[in-house]
């Protein structure tokens, strides 16, 4: 089944000159100064435009966009709880599908998107996400990954990178900080044999917005894993969020790739990678790490990169 491939055959890319003007996420939201997550969210919403129906998991983006009686959402939006954005979205999709089939609402081309953080995706929400993907609902799930539970005050998640300091992975005499490697959510999603999976970073905004457009074009479930720098939680200056989101890609820590009908596509081949230490040293969450630690992390990053390249090769036999 080449669902995504067929749907994307005539895909028209956005260019910097024809960016959509609508901002389904409005000004006046209460995100922190320099929030990379709300920036990513804004770009994603902008890429979809007026047809967006948004489902938010509990988390930073939900809190900062909807303190009653205000909403920063120009589009239909619903929040229910922390771990269930995918199931709520599947309900919205099923409900609309039934109503359209029965002729009770018109098919207005609405695009259903679920937004959750890394905790709401990789930890507490992974069951609901897996179920919704497996059932094949036509929706896009977006994980805005700021690598810890920022909403509750920077606690570790399974998406927190090795060595990072959080309030529940403090470095100490017997601790390097986060003790485990970051869970590979995009590949977990891809293992569902779903039509479209992609990683993206707001520093590469055209790449991000085009992936959003692809995700909502593809029938069936799509998964976007979006890097979302958090200056507050990562303890870095608010003005370097975009730079951080760029360097994480340049350091091969967060490669930009797509998985289209199981075929891996590397969107940005990083020939001369930035050493991981260069990326990490600007964030105080890694301040306690030694050169030995950086070398250890570099080894893992290199191995992951090679695995990804191998997957690209293995799934593109014609190349």
């Amino acid at each position, binding site marked *: 089944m080449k669902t995504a491939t067929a749907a994307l055959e005539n895909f028209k890319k956005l260019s*910097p000159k024809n*960016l959509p003007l609508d*901002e389904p996420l*409005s*000004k*006046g*939201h*209460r*995100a*922190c*100064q*320099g*929030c*990379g997550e*709300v*920036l990513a969210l*804004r*770009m994603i919403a902008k890429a979809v435009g007026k047809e967006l129906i948004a489902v938010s998991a509990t988390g930073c983006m939900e809190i900062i*966009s*909807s303190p*009653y*009686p*205000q*909403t*920063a*959402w*120009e*589009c239909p939006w619903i929040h229910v709880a922390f771990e269930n954005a995918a199931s709520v979205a599947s309900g919205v999709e099923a409900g609309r599908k039934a109503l359209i089939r029965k002729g009770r609402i018109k098919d207005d081309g609405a695009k259903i998107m679920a937004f959750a953080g890394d905790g709401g995706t990789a930890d507490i929400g992974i069951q609901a996400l897996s179920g919704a993907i497996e059932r094949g609902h036509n929706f896009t799930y977006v994980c805005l990954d700021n690598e810890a539970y920022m909403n509750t005050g920077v606690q570790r998640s399974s998406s927190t990178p090795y060595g990072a300091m959080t309030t529940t992975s403090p470095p100490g005499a017997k601790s390097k900080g986060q003790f485990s490697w970051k869970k590979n959510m995009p590949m977990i999603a891809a293992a569902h044999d779903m039509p479209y999976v992609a990683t993206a970073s*707001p520093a590469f*905004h055209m790449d991000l917005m085009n992936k959003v457009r692809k995700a909502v074009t593809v029938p069936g479930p799509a998964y976007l894993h979006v890097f979302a720098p958090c*200056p507050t939680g990562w303890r870095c*200056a*608010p*003005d*370097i*969020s*975009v*730079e951080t989101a760029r360097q994480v890609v340049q350091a091969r820590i967060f490669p930009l790739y797509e998985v289209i009908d199981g075929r891996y596509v590397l969107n940005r081949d990083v020939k001369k990678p930035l050493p991981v230490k260069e990326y990490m040293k600007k964030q105080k969450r890694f301040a306690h790490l030694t050169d030995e630690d950086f070398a250890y992390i570099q080894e893992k990053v290199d191995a992951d990169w090679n695995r990804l390249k191998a997957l690209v090769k293995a799934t593109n036999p014609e190349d």
Partner: protein
Amino acid sequence: MADEGMQSWKELALGCAVTTPGNAKDFNTGDWRSTRIPVTDREKCIKCGMCYIMCPDMCYTPDPDAEGFYLWDTYYCKGCGICITECPKDAISWKEEEETA
């Protein structure tokens, strides 16, 4: 309306829904900024729009009076400085707020 329904439970919309989309626009996040503001030097500006697209708070909008330039909005700018860091031509820089007032 910023204070919609804040007085009485009888005035709440069904299920506490907010029925005025995007009314967060009333909220002045410019208050969060301390003393500095980003100022664009239009001599250096190449109208690339990076400030517009990279601003998390959507403070830059196309200037209707000057084609291609972007206007900065004091009402929303939290003063993060991303526009300054990301401007490819270093056309945006900090100024003390009093200097421009």
